[in-house]
């Protein structure tokens, strides 16, 4: 991952702080209002953070798509943690939300094969359902070729 300059890092940290406090991704306008920077300046810092794989921007809107492990949009991976519902980008990120928040939680999704509801509690940092399995189709070398698909 390329290095991130201190100004970009500060905006990255503010983005995550607002995401967690508000339970959703802040818009560039909201972050501009909070930080005192212009919206264009926020967009430019976000673009550099996107290029550094520190966040993922929506290709059409330029707004936050992923502040991993959190997703800015609805996904099949819902996580109850720290008193809120969150969306994760994938199964890995669903457990990552509990890890990042240092919180017990409950992951709800469906089996990608049969569509049955799957639930997994996380308590004291450990998953409660050892029978479930995770499959990663894309090799690590290609994850960032299309991170939304990955």
């Amino acid at each position: 991952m390329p290095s991130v300059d201190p100004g970009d890092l500060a905006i990255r940290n503010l983005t995550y702080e607002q995401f967690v406090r508000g339970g959703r991704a802040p818009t560039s306008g909201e972050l501009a209002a909070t930080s005192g920077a212009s919206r264009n300046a926020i967009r430019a810092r976000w673009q550099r953070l996107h290029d550094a794989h520190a966040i993922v921007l929506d290709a059409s809107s330029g707004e936050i798509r992923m502040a991993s492990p959190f997703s800015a949009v609805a996904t099949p991976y819902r996580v109850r943690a720290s008193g809120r519902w969150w969306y994760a980008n994938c199964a890995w990120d669903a457990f990552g939300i509990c890890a990042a928040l240092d919180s017990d939680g409950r992951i709800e999704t469906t089996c990608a094969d049969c569509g049955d509801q799957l639930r997994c509690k996380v308590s004291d940092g450990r998953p409660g359902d050892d029978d479930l399995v995770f499959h990663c189709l894309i090799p690590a070398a290609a994850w960032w070729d299309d991170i939304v698909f990955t």
Partner: protein
Amino acid sequence: MNLFRSEEHVTRWLDGRRPGATLDVTTLNDLAHGWWGDRLHADWQPHTRQQNQAILINLGLTDDFWRLP
């Protein structure tokens, strides 16, 4: 990167495609802690490739599938 009820469901879902890697959820959870656990820390810095590769290696994910670019 999906969850499945069992390895049988993974095989059926693949439907003949080349498989990737399958992990139990305990390993996945450990991976999530290593990868994302510091994401909200005030002193967070981007992980280097070497740091991320070490997280994978420490969980026994050492084959080419898990080799970062």
